[in-house]
């Protein structure tokens, strides 16, 4: 099958790739562009491990065809830290031990960042509701929710 040429901006850098029609954005990111932060968990949109943003909107990249990214701006977990400095969400996840095996962490960080950009001061319930699409088998979620709320407070303080 012939490949399609796709032009996107990924984490602020103009990026071109060739992909097959049946390749998902997740496969393109991981196998063609070697951005392996986003993970494949379920492949059916249930687990959130592959979360990225597409034109500012949180999506499950396992359910987006790579070709549909034409002209889009994509951000992945690799785009969160600036230079050597971690994003406040990443820093709080470390400080508060909000991860164990780490497979769900990139998706949760991207999803939480999308939430805080929309709602800088979410309640605990809003954070839990928003992250309902991100499964974690290790932490029991409590530390994740606390880290997101702490990062939100940090970001509001810095603003």
């Amino acid at each position, binding site marked *: 099958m012939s490949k399609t040429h796709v032009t996107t901006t990924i984490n602020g850098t103009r990026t071109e790739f060739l992909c*097959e*029609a049946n390749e998902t954005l997740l496969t393109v990111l991981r196998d063609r562009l070697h951005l392996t932060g986003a993970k494949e968990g379920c*492949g059916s*949109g249930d687990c959130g491990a592959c979360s990225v943003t597409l034109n500012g*909107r949180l*999506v499950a990249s*396992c359910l987006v*065809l790579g*070709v549909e990214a034409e002209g889009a701006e994509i951000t992945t977990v690799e785009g969160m830290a600036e230079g050597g400095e971690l994003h406040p969400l990443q820093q709080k996840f470390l400080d508060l031990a909000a991860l164990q095996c780490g497979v769900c962490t990139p998706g949760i960080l991207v999803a939480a960042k999308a939430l805080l950009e929309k709602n800088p001061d979410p309640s605990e319930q809003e954070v839990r509701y928003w992250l309902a*699409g991100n499964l974690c088998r290790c932490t029991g979620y409590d530390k994740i929710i606390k880290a997101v709320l702490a990062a939100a407070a940090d970001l509001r303080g810095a603003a």
Partner: protein
Amino acid sequence: MSAPLPEFTLLHPHDVDAALAAAKAHPEARFVAGGTDLLVNMRHGIGAPDTLISLSRIKALRRISATDDGLFIGAGVTLAELARHPVLRHYEAIRDAACVVAGPSHRNAATLGGNLCLDTRCLYYNQSDWWRHSNGYCLKYRGEICHVAPRGKRCRAAFCGDMAPALMVHGARIELATADGTRHLPLEAFYLEDGAAHLVLAPDEIVTGVYLPPNDADSARSAYTKIRIRQAIDFPLAGVALACDPVAEGLRFRLAFTGTNARPVLVDLPEALDSGANDATRDDYFNGLEKLVQRSVSPQRTTTTQPHYRRLAVAAMARRLAVGLAAGSAAGSAAG
């Protein structure tokens, strides 16, 4: 690792006419919009269309506009856009439903048209190919028998879209287009009670949008609620939309259900709730409503949750919504 998607050719028409021409030229093609239902099924080996016609670049389908007699919502509007759109403030059930479809990442991709055309769901169908293969497949796809009702000849898979019941209680009409023209149907006429063929949509036909009659009276109210396994992300085990309209005799209720049958079920309550009713009469009325709902739905063993529980739950939710809206309506008229 989940199974990769089968190979297909992907087309990107820029307008509806080009999409319909492509469908005519490729009889085996499927339309894809957000992909949150179709791609999951394809990965499970359900359907292997040689061509997918993506509707993502058709701007005309993403329109929400006021018309002479109400509102038009394009089939390509995402559920996230619907959930926050100010024109839906007088259509509470529709806004409620848009807010509770799946999780945020799905609502950002999924479209109204896709949700209306959602494939029916069943414990024996929404499984990987090897799982279904080892179970002898089923009546809905590739198999001979229905594991839910083995003696039956009809697929019992349940329609689980959240938007359809909410639109139905608001009197929505659906617009369908083929290369030969467009047609309009009351939304309830778009569905059939057959889990393997639940839409009247032809293979080369697309949903272009829905029309809603005006609903700007302050006292007309509606709501949608559902039960699900994973709160804040799942398909409904059962869902209820309810609208109440003030009429001369009191309040008229219109209800619609999802997750209980192969199609969304619309029920117009024959009698109005008398506005002067005392507490005992009101209680009788709501008891009658609850019993009518129980008789109107037929949940099957299509989920891990028992049909009897879903029948009782959907009726209890309907009663709760009706009591709440009646109370709100009474408070509203007292305040006014």
